[in-house]
């Protein structure tokens, strides 16, 4: 059995930043396990620009952003196993993995960092009527075909869901000569970034139908058309509003789900809100010494924030390896009115440092107030002009404010 101080599962942006940070925080015996044949994760197929504006103050492509971290990993004495799939993880921090060189092998770690990322929701999760013709892809799969494999999945496209990957693919397919007829979104708002609505749809005259969904996919061998309908407030299709688009391809961009099979099987508690592990502010799960960061924990809008969170997890893992287990003196942080999730879900109140709370709102709200309260006591209040579910919000609890906390916290959005 191999022994490492820290094993990082996943070599995407989260795993890379976590490994670098753990190393720089004093842990020296670190291994990254990556299932693809190179590091970088999903960034490798995200050839569009706009990454790194927060972190590097410049607009990078996905591979460029990944490269900066891959170089940093190479500059340190960090082991990397590529083409290696982790098949199980246990509470006592044994990782079982498989690759063609070593076969099945087990690594024992003092600390583990979960950085497996997320995967796309599929058509199956949506229950759309119709047969099962060829030509239906998740937006990320289409992105891989076009950008990595170099061929087009179709010529005439309808996209369901206005997540960022769907918007990016609307532009990408258009640039490569396809006709994108429509992007339809069941919600009254897009879950994608505003800038992507402008530069991916408006720039090319691609219509965005809000409050619309696909009600039928036609075609036997290959998609031949889709029918879309307007939906009511309960998101049920309204009869008589059907529109039909002839097309050969349907892309789904209907959300991302943290990939937590390993986490679940290891007996780590998951949040039904984020669908990732329940963590403390140091990104430690409820199994001491196992940490999580990036999209496996909660789906981020920007990779810059993934890197930031992962550095925190890396530092915490190193601290665990060097200084041993720390007792948590924590309160729960719960999502209240109009808030869909809060992270971290547990906050230690005896810290001498600030704690950043990340959360999403459950609808579109104008001129509202975020309120973090402990029973009847309001700890923090902050006004916000516009809050939308597509954009992650943050609140900073300073170490002074932490001292005022004597029970569970509730974060809510008021005045909406």
């Amino acid at each position: 059995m191999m022994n490492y101080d820290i094993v990082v599962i996943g070599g995407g942006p989260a795993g890379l930043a976590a490994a670098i940070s753990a190393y720089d925080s004093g842990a020296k015996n670190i291994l990254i396990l990556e299932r693809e044949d190179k590091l970088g994760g999903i960034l490798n197929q995200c050839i569009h620009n706009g990454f790194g504006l927060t972190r590097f103050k410049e607009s990078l492509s996905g591979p460029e952003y990944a490269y900066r971290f891959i170089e940093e990993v190479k500059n340190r004495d960090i082991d990397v196993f590529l083409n290696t799939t982790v098949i199980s993880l246990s509470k006592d921090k044994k990782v079982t993995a498989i690759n063609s060189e070593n076969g099945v092998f087990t690594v024992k770690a003092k600390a583990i960092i979960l950085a497996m990322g997320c995967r796309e929701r599929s058509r199956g999760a949506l229950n759309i009527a119709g047969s099962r013709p060829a030509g239906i892809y998740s937006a990320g799969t289409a992105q891989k075909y076009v950008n990595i494999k170099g061929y087009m999945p179709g010529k005439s496209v309808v996209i369901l869901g206005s997540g960022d990957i769907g918007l990016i693919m609307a532009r990408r397919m258009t640039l490569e000569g396809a006709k994108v007829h429509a992007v339809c979104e069941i919600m009254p708002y897009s879950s994608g970034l505003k800038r992507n609505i402008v530069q991916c749809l408006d720039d090319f005259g691609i219509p965005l139908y809000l409050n619309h969904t696909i009600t039928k996919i036609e075609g036997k061998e290959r998609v031949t058309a889709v029918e879309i309908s307007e939906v009511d407030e309960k998101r049920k299709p309204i009869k008589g509003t059907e529109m039909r688009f002839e097309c050969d391809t349907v892309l789904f961009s209907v959300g991302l789900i943290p990939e937590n099979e390993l986490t679940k099987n290891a007996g780590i508690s998951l949040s039904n809100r984020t669908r990732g592990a329940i963590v403390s502010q140091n990104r430690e799960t409820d199994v001491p010494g196992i940490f999580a960061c990036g999209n496996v924990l909660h789906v981020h809008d920007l990779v810059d924030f993934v890197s930031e969170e992962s550095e925190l997890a890396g530092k915490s893992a190193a601290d665990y390896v060097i200084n041993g287990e720390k007792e948590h003196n924590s309160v729960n942080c719960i999502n209240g009115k109009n808030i869909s999730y809060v992270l971290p879900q547990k906050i230690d109140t005896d810290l001498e440092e600030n704690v950043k709370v990340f959360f999403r709102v459950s609808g579109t709200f104008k001129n509202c107030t975020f309120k973090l309260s402990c029973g009847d006591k309001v700890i923090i209040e902050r006004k916000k002009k516009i809050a939308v579910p597509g954009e992650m919000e943050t609140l900073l609890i300073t170490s002074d404010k932490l001292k005022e906390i004597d029970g569970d916290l509730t974060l809510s959005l008021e005045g909406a």
Partner: protein
Amino acid sequence: MEKVNLTCIECPMGCRIEVEVENGKAVSITGNSCPRGKMYAENEVVCPMRVVTSTVRSKSGKMVPVKTDKPVKKALIFEVMKTINSLSCNTPIRIGDIICENISDGANLVASGNVD
């Protein structure tokens, strides 16, 4: 005087900018939160510019991610795409290597990812 409402695309904040245009020029810009936004709005009402990102098929068959190293005229995006799709390059290639000089208005097409 004409009022134009824009969403800034310079960063993920997506500021809503209101521009007052007179004789084809921005005379007042409000709503931006940084100088990049002001510049974006000034250009956007005169001549919208975009960085084009795509791929070039290398001689080895592997796809090389590419981008223009400066924004090019939005109106010329499809012309730039046509050139991009007529190009090929050798591998290995490194980030920043020029694949096509002056693809449009002085902008070069450069590799935006390493391919071995």
